[in-house]
Every structure is written in structure tokens, then in C-alpha cells.
């Protein structure tokens, strides 16, 4: 595997006819950790859903490419197999399908028929990752996300991330609803992924997560656009001073999407 590049150019996205993203430009390379911050209602989660291909979001303008390939032409599953991953803010619950069965399907979806991962190898790998994420072993046999607590769901998203090993991952508010211990564990899992082959986009409105996962680039989103970018120090200033100084600097009165 080599370094990948996810390129987003002038992205406009609508939901139910209302435009939420109004021209987003962003480039994420393997080895880089990006954070997108911003208050609620500014379009952060819309960006992550649009990249993954959520059925309700419509891209009206612009482009998304992964290593030059047109992501917008791909079905959701093709995007995933091309190397994209989205840790969702609200993962679905699926009755009757065990976590292990689901994970194995996801792994095998990337392998040729006849070359499926051996059960033993899969279980060893899963056990190792679950240990690192301090998950109970019985969670492998529980139905996918069904009855999971908020924290368990987030850990489970990271378990999938570690199992699938995508090229570029988007983590949509992976820190929300986590207590400090759980946040440390989840961060440990994400940091384990660091490497030249892995790029990451974290979406959050708290600086807290970034105490554990240091970003290389920080972007602020307002009114459906990235309005400011910087390094890790930008996140620290936001933590200390809030968003008002940016709004003043840019002459923005209401940061939400209109």
C-alpha cells in the first residue's frame, strides 16, 4: 500500500432540497490527521455523510476523488472497498446479525471468493483488537450494536476501523457521549492506526479529543464552508477563546447554515 489522497473540491451538498455545504475544499493525504471543528449546524456531519454516500444527501456541485478516482460515481460499498471509512455518529442496530459475523463479512468483502479469511485468523485478530479497546469478549457474539451503550457503539466503530484498515477514515464525533476513560481507550485505538498509509479526518466540536490525538491540520467550518485552517495551535486557541474571534475576524454573525 502507498499513500492515498482524498481530494474534495468546491463541494456543494443538499438535503431535501436545502443546500448545506456551499463549496468545501479539502485534501487529506496518507499519514495526515485532520480535524474539522465548528459549532453545531455548520455542515460538519453533512461533509462526512456526503463523502461516504449517505442516501439522503445529494451532491449538486464539485468533486470528490480518491487517488484520482471519482468517488461520487461509486456506490457506498465501492467507496468503502476503494479505501474510505466512516465511523458514524449514530451507527445502525441490526438484529440477528452478530458483530463477529458482520465484521467477517466486511473483511471478506475485500477478498476474492475462495480467498476468505480463515476463521481462526479472524478471531485472533478480532480478540487482539477488542483487548486493546477494552471490550468484553461477549460483544463479538452480540447482535450488531443492538442494546450497546453509547460508549460501546463508539468502541465498536473503532474496532471496525482497526479490522478493516482503510486508507482514509472519517470519524464523525467519535468523542461525543464518551467519558474520559472511554475517550482514552478510543484514542488509543485511533493512534494505533497512525502511519504513512493512513489518513484521518476527525469531526468534532470539542477540543478535548485533540488532547489525545494530535492533529496535523485543523479546519474550522461555518456556514457550510471551511473558513479557517491552521495547525494544532488553532484548536488550542479555539479551546481557550471559543469561536467568536473567528466570526469577528470574518464578519460572520450567524455561523449556522442558512
Amino acid at each position, binding site marked *: 500500500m502507498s499513500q492515498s489522497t482524498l481530494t474534495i473540491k468546491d463541494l456543494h451538498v443538499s438535503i431535501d432540497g436545502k443546500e448545506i455545504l456551499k463549496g468545501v475544499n479539502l485534501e487529506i493525504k496518507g499519514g495526515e490527521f485532520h480535524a474539522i471543528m465548528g459549532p453545531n449546524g455548520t455542515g460538519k456531519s453533512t461533509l462526512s455523510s456526503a463523502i461516504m454516500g*449517505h*442516501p439522503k444527501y445529494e451532491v449538486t456541485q464539485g468533486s470528490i476523488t480518491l487517488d484520482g478516482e471519482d468517488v461520487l460515481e461509486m456506490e457506498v460499498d465501492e467507496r468503502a472497498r476503494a479505501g474510505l471509512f466512516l465511523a458514524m455518529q449514530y451507527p445502525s442496530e441490526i438484529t*440477528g446479525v452478530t458483530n463477529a*459475523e458482520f465484521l467477517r463479512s466486511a473483511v471478506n468483502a475485500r477478498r476474492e471468493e475462495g480467498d476468505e479469511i480463515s476463521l481462526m485468523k479472524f478471531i485472533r485478530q478480532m480478540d487482539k483488537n477488542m483487548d486493546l479497546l477494552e471490550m468484553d469478549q461477549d460483544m463479538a457474539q452480540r447482535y450488531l450494536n443492538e442494546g450497546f451503550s453509547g460508549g460501546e457503539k463508539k468502541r465498536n466503530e473503532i474496532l471496525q476501523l482497526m479490522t478493516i484498515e482503510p486508507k482514509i477514515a472519517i470519524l464523525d464525533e467519535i468523542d461525543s457521549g464518551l467519558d474520559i476513560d472511554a475517550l482514552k481507550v478510543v484514542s488509543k485505538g485511533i493512534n494505533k492506526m497512525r502511519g504513512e498509509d493512513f489518513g484521518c479526518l476527525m469531526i468534532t466540536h470539542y477540543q478535548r479529543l485533540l488532547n489525545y490525538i494530535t492533529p496535523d491540520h485543523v479546519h474550522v467550518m461555518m456556514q457550510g464552508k471551511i473558513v479557517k485552517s491552521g495547525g494544532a495551535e488553532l484548536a488550542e486557541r479555539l479551546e481557550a477563546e471559543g469561536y467568536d474571534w473567528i466570526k469577528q475576524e470574518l464578519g460572520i454573525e450567524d455561523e449556522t447554515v442558512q
Partner: protein
Amino acid sequence: MTETKWSVDESAIRDFSAANNEPEWLLNARLDAFNKAEDLPLPKPDKTKIDKWNFTEFGTHNVQSTPFESLAALPEEAKAVVGEESSVQNVYVQRNGTPSILNISSELKEAGVIFTDFATAAKEHGELLQKYFMTQAVKADEHKLTALHTALVNGGVFLYVPKNVEIKEPVQAVFIHDDKDAALFNHVIVVAEANSSVTYVENYISTVETEQGVANIITEVIAGDNAQVSYGAVDTLAENVTTYVNRRGITAPNARIEWSLGVMNDGNTVSENVTNLIGDGSFADTKMVVVGRGKQSMNFTTKVVHFGKHTEGYILKHGVMKDEAKSIFNGIGKIEHGASKSNAEQESRVLMLSEKARGDANPILLIDEDDVTAGHAASVGRVDPLQLYYLMSRGITQQEAERLVIHGFLAPVVNKLPIENVKQQLTGVIERKVRQ
């Protein structure tokens, strides 16, 4: 109303009966039922109109097929359900109407167990058959289809377990439909005398496509005092076969009947499964899974009627409808006056995978006694697009994602099936039916 067209007449019935050396009572039962069939109405399954369905026109009810020489000579679909090992002790295989293979262990024979095809049962165990055939669980004159069945029965199996005999291994019957002209009027009787226990598993398998096929199937289970019958069935009849299948049981005191039913036919199907809990302290449990696809229409009535005190009845059905398939799930728990301390529970769930699929679940509780408990749950819904999105976002194809969702929807029933063989078979059948 259009006049019913019949594919047989009285002389054909006489010829058939004579050719099989049937006892006179059976011929008389046939002729009597045939005379009534014309005037009797069709059954009226709630919310499905069946008056245009073809139950009466078919190639012939008298097909002579060449018997299979051995289990190894069976078609693949049948091999898959019986297994080829010589360990298959107690199995009956029927090809269209023709008895083909019958294995029964010497152990069971010595214990007095009777396991034989319907025609042999009529010849060799006539008195016993007469006692149970269309007399206790089902009656010939209930409606046109029960009458027609009685008149034309051309296959099936008779299983008789004497008192105190406990059969450990499942007894199996495989009914293979591989002649496009053959109509199936199959009759199965399972009698479990006092304190006996038995597990019976049957398969209906079509390996041929037909233009107009008819299957009219009746099962009667008679469970004696404290007897236990576990009855499994996996039906996979072909697209143009119109099926009426009635599986009914009655219980003596403290008897238990468990049904594990997988109705996976590809054609229009009326399925009726009734347990009459006559004896005090008796018990019925029905678990059923269904997958509908193509344009088929199906109606499932599952009913437990409580007559005895302290009786318990449980119904659990899950169905998945694909394409343009339609299905009605009627669940009825009926507690008669005097059946105090009884409990009737039921759950029906239908999942629709496409815009054009239709499903309906009607839970009904009819209670004529105060001192009872009862409950029901029902749901009908479409597959959640966000579930598919979530699965696909991990690289799983849409087809595989749907397969997982269907499998997951049926798993809570399949995993609880008491018969391991049926559980395994169904997992395979569901896979096949879902994939195509």
C-alpha cells in the same frame, strides 16, 4: 360463479383404489368425499382471495414414477436434506406418488413402531389407519379442499409410535416432486401413544418446473397422554404449484406438540397450522419462517385452540417478502370457556424488502374464559435503508447486506428451532431463496 373443472371423475377414483388393493372403507371414504367436494365451499383464509386459484386442475393424480434405487441416486436437493451416510436409519422417500425408499431400523420395528407409506398402511394396518384418517384432527367435509384431499389422497406416510416408546433420532420423510404432470395429495399421520416421544421431519421438494401443479397436503398429529411430538417441515415446492397445506394436531392430557415449519414454496400457498389443545396441561409451540419472492401470494393461518385447563400455546412467525411477493400472517389464540389457567402467546413479524412486496400480520385473541393469560406482538415493516447504508459503508455489497438483514430478521426464530436438522436445512434454503 363458474363451475369447478375437475381433472378426475368417480371411475378414476375407483380404479386408483382398486389398483392399490385398498380396503373398502377407504374407497367409500374417497367416494363420499368426492361427492361432497363439488358443493362444499373453498376455505376462506382471512384477507387472501383464493377463489381464482387453481386447486382442481392438474395433470394427473395417478403418476407411476420409477423408484430411486438408493439414497445415493436421489437428486442433489434431496441428498442435501437426508445426507448420504448410511447412518440415515429411518427415512422414507417418495417420488411423486410412488413409494421409493423406506428404511426403518430393526430397533424401531422391534419396539412396534410402524413407519410406512400410506398405501401400505391402508393394506397392512387398515384398522389403525381407519381410526385416525380424517376422523380426529381434520374432517373430510370441512371444505372443498379437505374433501378433495380425502377423495384423491395418493401418497404420504403413516408413523405410529406405541406407548412408552421414545425415539431418539429423527424420523424423516422426503417427498420429491419431479414429474410436471403429477398432482400431490399427500397425507401424513403421526400417532404418538401415551408417554412416547418422536421427532419427525419432512421435506417437500420440487425439482421440476410445471405449468399448473397442485399440492393438497394434510398432516394429522395425534399426541396421546404425556406424549411428545416434534414435527419439522421444510417445503420448497415450485413456482406454478398451488399449495394447500394443512398441518393439524390434537393433544391428550399433558401432551406436547412442537412445530418447526419453514414454508419456502415459490408458488401460491395457503398454509393452515392448527393445534387443538384438548387435554389438560397440554402444550403447543409453533415456530415458522417464511420467505416470499417473485409474484407469489401466501396466506398463513396459525392457530392454537385451548380446550383443556392449564394449556399453553405459543406462536412465533417471521417472514421476509421480496420482489412482488404478498403474504398474510394470521395468528389466532383461542381460549375456550373452561380452559382456565391457560396461556396463549403469539408474535408475528413481516419484513418487506422492496416497494412492491406486501405483508400483513393479524394477531387475534379470542378468549372465553376469565382466568387466563394471553399476549400478542405483531409488526410489519420495510427494510431500513440506513441499515443497508451502514453495512455497505463497510464494503459489503448491497446483495450481501440484504442477505445479512434477512438472515438477521429470521435468526430469532431459526435459532430457537428445536430440531437441529431443520435449523441447518433452513439456513441453507433461506440462503438460496434470498440469493436468486
